């Protein structure tokens, strides 16, 4: 693992900047997750992604158990920042 300074990461948004043009994982409100290639973002965490796949977890509210996953795909998608919980860079394993 590189030291944070050497890799140019000083603040949280640097991590997202270094993920530009790479595939990122995004967790959203409402049990939604996205995987897509990051092309743009701003300080509200509004995002523009391409080759996007969304997974919605459909949770049974009574038993609190996950019952199903619904998947959708888009070529190019704008995501409004107020729904974003986290953006995770691609794994470098």
């Amino acid at each position: 693992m590189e030291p944070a300074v050497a890799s140019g990461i000083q603040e949280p948004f640097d991590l997202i900047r270094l993920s530009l043009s790479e595939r990122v994982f995004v967790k959203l409100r409402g049990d939604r997750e996205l995987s897509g290639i990051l092309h743009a973002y701003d300080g509200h965490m509004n995002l523009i992604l391409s080759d996007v796949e969304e997974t919605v977890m459909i949770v049974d509210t009574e038993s609190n158990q996950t019952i199903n996953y619904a998947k959708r795909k888009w070529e190019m998608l704008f995501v409004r920042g107020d729904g974003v919980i986290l953006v995770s860079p691609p794994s470098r394993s």
Partner: protein
Amino acid sequence: MQLIFSVFKTLTDQTVTVELKNDLSITGVLKSVDQFLNIRLDNIKVSDENRHPHMMAVKNCFIRGSVVRYVQLPAEHVDTQLLEDATRRGVFCIRGSPSGC
């Protein structure tokens, strides 16, 4: 920063699909957008109109930016390289770095 606002401006007169936070999806021609990312769509069509007849007689609409979840963009009209460059520059500007802006 107005990057995303500018992107939407370049997509004026293109067809987009706006998904709202009430799960309604509306496809239409993007007529205008403002700094709050409020959106005006012309010639609209609601997906699954049988379940959502509420907007049957609506031909154009104004959508408040805050209720938007996603906007599906026409990929052929989005220059991803330009976006990435602008995003990098924009962030440097905000942080007041000397590097080119």
